[in-house]
């Protein structure tokens, strides 16, 4: 099967005086559609950086990045954003819900950036609230939710625009194990429904949900 994501010799470094401090070093990686990939490694190894490169939040790197055969490394910011909005969803370890918005409004935010009509957006949000069984919490603000509930909203927000690939940065890192398991079951279900998932994790238990584990140390990907 053809790769959905293909990285070739991706380098990322910070200049510190005369020295270059590499965060990613000659990273070459292929991810196929429908795969569930776990990225593991010690703290500071470059896992999150790799995820943000994949998610196009970070564009200060060198090398080649093909997404569905489109050369991301050659595209301008606008075109990258178009691709991102069409295909990607992102889950953060610290949930990063917008404090001033209610649950329903948080779920509406990604849709509002995709030029979807208000009435249509309301229907999608209602559907996702129902699917995640959080209808009763739609008017609450993030500060009124538990950590697990916040992450549930975070996952719901990541998939609300129906992405083809979900990038998750330690999605259970701040949760109790029971809440973590609930989130991981949700990822498993999404993957079974066809979503490609790339998840950064420290947890071997969570990694066990993945089809494949990519290990990264000091910016280098270990031989798979």
């Amino acid at each position, binding site marked *: 099967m053809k790769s959905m994501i293909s990285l070739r010799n991706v380098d990322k470094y*910070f200049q510190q005086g005369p020295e270059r401090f590499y965060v990613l070093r000659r990273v070459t990686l292929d991810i196929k559609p429908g795969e569930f990939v776990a990225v593991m490694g010690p703290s500071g190894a470059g896992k*999150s950086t790799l995820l*943000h490169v994949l*998610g196009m*939040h*970070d564009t*200060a790197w060198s090398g080649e990045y093909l997404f569905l055969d489109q050369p991301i490394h050659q595209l301008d*910011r*606008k075109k990258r*954003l178009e691709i*991102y*909005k069409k295909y990607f969803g*992102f889950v*953060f*370890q*610290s949930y*990063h819900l*917008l*404090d*001033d*918005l209610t649950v329903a*409004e948080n779920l509406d*935010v*990604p849709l*509002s*950036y*995709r030029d979807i*009509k*208000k009435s249509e957006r309301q229907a999608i949000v209602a559907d996702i609230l129902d699917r995640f069984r959080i209808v009763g919490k739609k008017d609450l603000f993030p500060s009124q939710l538990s950590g697990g509930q916040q992450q549930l909203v975070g996952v719901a*927000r990541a998939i609300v*625009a129906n992405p083809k690939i979900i990038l998750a*940065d*330690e999605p259970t*890192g701040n949760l109790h194990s029971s809440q973590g398991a609930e989130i991981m079951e949700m990822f498993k279900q999404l993957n079974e429904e066809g979503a490609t998932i790339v998840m950064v994790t420290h947890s071997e238990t969570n990694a066990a949900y993945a089809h494949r584990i990519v290990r990264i140390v000091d910016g280098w990907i270990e031989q798979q």
Partner: protein
Amino acid sequence: MSGLREDLRISWRRLAARPAASAAAILALALGIGFSTANYSVADAILFHPLPVPDIDRVVVIGLRLEASPDDFRSVPPADFSLWTSSSRTFQSIAADRRWFATFTGSGEPLQVQGALVNAAFFDVMQLRPALGRFFTAEEEHPGHDNSIVLNYHLWERQFAADPAIVGRTVQLSGRSFTVCGVLPKGLNFPRGAEFLAPLAWEPGAWADSSSFVLHVTARLRDGASLPQARAEFDSFTRASAAQYPATHSHVTANLVPLRERASGGHAAGYIRILIAAVLFLVLIACLNVANLQLARILARGREMAVRAALGASRLRIARQVLVESLLLSAAGALLGVLTASWALDYIRALIPPEFIRFLPGWSSLGLNRWVLTWTALTAAAAGILSALAPVAWLNRASLAPSLHESGRSSTTGTTRGRLRTSLVVFETSLAVVLLIGAAVMVRSFGAIDGLDVSNDPRQALTFRLSLPESRYPGSAAAARFQNDLLTRLQALPGVRGAAIVSNLPGSGSANSAFVTVEGRPAERGPGAVSQAQSISPSYFHTLGLPLVEGRAFNPSDGRDTAQVAIVSQAFARRFFPAASPLGRRVHLGDGNWLTIVGLAADVLHDYGDRHPLPIVYRPAAQFTWNSFDALVATSGDPSSLASAVRRAVHDTDAAQPVYLLRSFDRLLRDNTFGIAFVASILAALGAVALFLSLLGVYSVMACVVAERTREFGVRLALGARRASLLWLVLRSGLLIAAASLLLGLPAAFAVLHLLRGFIFGVSPYDLSVFAGVPAVLSAALAAACLLPAWRATRTDPITALRYE
């Protein structure tokens, strides 16, 4: 559209959630926009819509000037006016007017009223419709038919209680009967100060007079003609006049100025422009202040912005959110600003004495009209956009991705953010430095001119003006008799130390001038040959407290039948007799009457607009009698207590003679400098607001800096730093901002004052006390603004701070 509504809703919620920061931003904008609105209202009334004249930009005021004096603006001789009306192709109608101080009788006490004699073309030039009745016609301009009069709306209201049956009524002016034929439309205070218009009816021969510079001329441009074309045409007219009348017209050229510029007097338009520039500075200062507050908000919301970007928001969309927030703040600022403006306008109205209002065309329309509110809306929109620029620029340049990392530490260093914030506050404070220095110089200028260099205290003198009507005082002998009788009565009043008359008192804003010819030298007609000419009573120098340096004063024996004599000022002596004493020399003032100089008087600055004392020739009032003159009464106590006795003395001399402009000499001096006092007080207020906004800006920046460096302060304390050293650390940052602001602001202030030097009197535009005092005050104020954040820094608890995240 729904996205915009959504942005508005979220922005509103966000601003409401942080009431203190939002209130600070709204307050800054309300002050900036409010003062800008109030001052624009003044500009709108005085400069943009001074008169209800259709197509006012097509109306031009025409005067004469000496070629070497571009700002000179003189009245026009009738011969020139006749040439212009018969030859001009660029103007469709040309009108002449002449001031007339008339005695109004028949309705209680005699009243001195300022009016104007105008020809019927005046109404064509102004293209007006009467509020009541009709205007007089060209047929009524001929002697014998000139008995119609048009009242100014203000006089009609004040003196006739707006009686609609006024048309057809007969009134007495200076002993002549006039029939009221109409009332001017409301708001038309032109010619400036005139409360009625009567026909300018001269015998045909009088229009050939080339030596009496007495007419004021206004004209309306013909369709298709431009002001430069008119100027070129009038240059050719004045060249022809110079050839025809070399004695009076050499080196003289025409000066054509739009009516809008001169409707409120010579310097008014310039002063209004200064105020507009000052309020634009203030708006910019407020914008920078809000930009800084907005930037602090955005920086605090760096992670939110990054999350929005990660959820698919484009930079443009994020920028739109910031812009909507700023516009919402500026809209709230504008609403509050309109209230501020309304209050400021009440204050400004209270500054203007009621008797001044008729000299300020347009003043009656001062208020928050549609033009002014349009300005408010535009200013608010510009302020909203300007204050969003810096945060949006930062968002555009900053990498948001690092904010998404778990540590939440941005790779955009604190130094970069701090530099941007500090730059904004430095720029804001440097603008405040310019405004403060400008305001301080203007206030100093007003202080410097608010007095005369004479030994008698102007607060202990009473002044008034009299204008004896030609009908009752047809010859100068009759007027001279009146003056003598009056002075005798005034000097006999208890509490009076002296009384004198003079054609125009120093500080009165008026004076006659003439070309001086020195015996034995060729006649000159350049600006260097001009001197003021004053007619005075023998008691003048003593009453005013002006020393006589050499020679003798006039005495009662200098009469109509004795040799004609003069006293000259020191400036006159320096100009015309630099190498020797002027005593015994003879001069004439263009009329061929040789005057022998018998005394030398000390200099006195006649008008605050004069940079240096001008040459003055004093002549005995008995030999050169004017029907209109000022009287000066030196008192030993409060001059106002003598007002009724003085009125009685005039009444006893001539019961039909009204007293005009009765006030203390001190008040006369203040009234004459009212324009600069007004500008100085407004600029002082703007300077104070600018200082306040700068302090607010510096305080908010320092408060942010202290909050961001809490952890650093905790580490320093844990390592043994003394709390005083933290205090100094923060204060030093504030002083560095002050130093950088002064470094930028002082040269800018220097340049601005260089441009404004024409409006500054009595002090140097680069006054050392201002250039030293403002930086000292500003530095002290900025240090004070840093004190609270600095104190907070010293209260840092190391244990809490080291857990600070």
